[in-house]
C-alpha cells in the first residue's frame, strides 16, 4: 500500500489546509420563495410533459424539493459512510490509513451537519431513507472492497451535481455554497477512493472464484442503478403536489430524457471502477 499511503498523507495535509481556510456557512433566516435551488436541467422531471406544464414559480418550488432530496440522500449516504469508517478506525489492517480515514470521517460529519441544517431550517426535516442492509456472507476482502466501491459510486454521482450547481449562477447563493464546499472536500475523497478501490481489488480479487468476481460486478452494477434511481423521489413529487408520486416516479425513471441524463453519470461510475465493472478484465 505504499503509493496509497503516500497519497493518504498528502490528502491529510490538504485537508488541514482546506478546513483552516474555510469558515462557517451563513444561514439566512429563510430562502426566497422564488429562488432556484437545483439546476433546472438536472431536475428529475426535466423534459417531461409534467415539467413543461408547470409554471415558472412551480418549477422553482420543485427545485427546492429536489434540493431537499439531494441533501437528504447525501445525509443518509454519509451516515452509513461514517459508520463504516468508524468501524475501521481501530482495526489493525487499517492502521496505516487511520489518519486519513479520520479526516475523511470528520469531513463527512461536517457535510452531514450542513445538509441536515438546510433540511431542518427550510424544509422541517429531511426526506426518509428507504434502504435497509440485508445480512449476507462475504468472501475474504469482499466486504471492504464493496463498502469503499459503493461509497465511490455514490460520491462520483454526487460530485457531478455538486460541480454543476456550484457553478450555476441562477441558483440560491446558499445552495451554490453548500455544493461548492462539498465538491472541494469530495475531490480529496474521490482521489482516495479511486486509489483505495484499485488497491483493494488488486490485492483481493486474484483469490476470488469466478462466482465471487461476478457477484461483485453485479452488486456494483445494481448499486450504480440504485444510486441513480434515488434521484427520482416520491417525496419530491408528493411535496410538489403531484397526485400519484409513485406512478410519476416510474414514468420519470424510464423517460428517454431521464435515461439520456443518467447515461453519462453511469459512465463516470464505470470509469472510476474499470477493473470491477469491465467484463473483459
Amino acid at each position: 500500500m505504499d503509493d496509497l499511503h503516500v497519497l493518504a498523507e498528502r490528502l491529510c495535509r490538504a485537508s488541514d489546509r482546506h478546513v483552516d481556510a474555510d469558515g462557517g456557512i451563513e444561514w439566512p433566516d429563510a430562502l426566497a420563495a422564488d429562488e432556484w435551488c437545483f439546476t433546472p436541467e438536472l431536475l428529475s422531471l426535466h423534459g417531461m410533459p409534467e415539467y413543461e406544464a408547470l409554471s415558472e414559480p412551480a418549477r422553482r418550488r420543485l427545485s427546492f424539493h429536489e434540493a431537499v432530496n439531494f441533501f437528504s440522500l447525501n445525509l443518509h449516504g454519509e451516515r452509513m459512510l461514517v459508520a463504516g469508517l468508524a468501524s475501521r478506525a481501530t482495526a489493525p489492517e487499517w492502521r496505516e490509513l487511520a489518519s486519513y480515514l479520520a479526516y475523511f470521517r470528520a469531513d463527512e460529519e461536517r457535510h452531514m451537519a450542513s445538509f441536515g441544517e438546510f433540511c431542518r431550517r427550510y424544509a422541517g426535516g429531511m426526506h426518509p431513507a428507504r434502504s435497509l442492509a440485508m445480512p449476507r456472507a462475504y468472501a475474504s476482502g469482499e466486504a471492504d472492497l464493496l463498502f469503499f466501491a459503493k461509497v465511490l459510486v455514490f460520491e462520483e454521482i454526487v460530485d457531478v451535481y455538486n460541480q454543476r450547481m456550484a457553478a450555476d449562477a441562477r441558483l440560491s447563493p446558499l445552495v451554490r455554497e453548500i455544493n461548492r464546499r462539498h465538491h472541494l472536500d469530495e475531490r480529496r475523497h474521490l482521489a482516495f477512493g479511486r486509489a483505495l478501490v484499485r488497491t483493494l481489488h488488486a490485492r483481493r480479487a486474484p483469490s476470488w472464484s469466478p462466482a465471487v468476481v461476478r457477484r461483485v460486478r453485479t452488486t456494483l452494477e445494481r448499486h450504480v442503478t440504485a444510486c441513480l434511481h434515488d434521484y427520482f423521489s416520491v417525496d419530491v413529487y408528493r411535496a410538489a403536489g403531484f397526485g400519484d408520486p409513485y406512478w410519476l416516479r416510474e414514468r420519470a425513471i424510464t423517460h428517454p430524457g431521464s435515461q439520456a441524463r443518467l447515461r453519462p453519470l453511469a459512465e463516470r461510475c464505470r470509469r472510476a471502477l474499470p477493473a470491477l465493472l469491465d467484463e473483459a478484465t
Partner: protein
Amino acid sequence: MSARRTIVDWILRRTAAELPGGLSDDTPLFEHGILSSFDVVELILLIEELRGSPVDVERIEPATFRSVDSICGAFLAPEVTR
C-alpha cells in the same frame, strides 16, 4: 387484485432466480437469493403505495422482509386491496 398478490407478482417479475417450485408465502426471500438489498427500496415504495402510508425504515428489522407472510403481516391490513 389483493395487495398480497400484487407483492407476489412484483417479486416474481423482479427476481432473477429460477423458482421451479414457485414462490410460497413462507419462502425465505433473501436467504434463497430471490431478492437482494437492492430490491428493498423498491419493495418499500410498493408497500407504501399499496397501504397509502409511509414505512418508517428506522423501526424495521431486516427479518421483517424475510417472506411474503412476514411482509404482509408487518405492513398490510388483512383486507387491503389495490
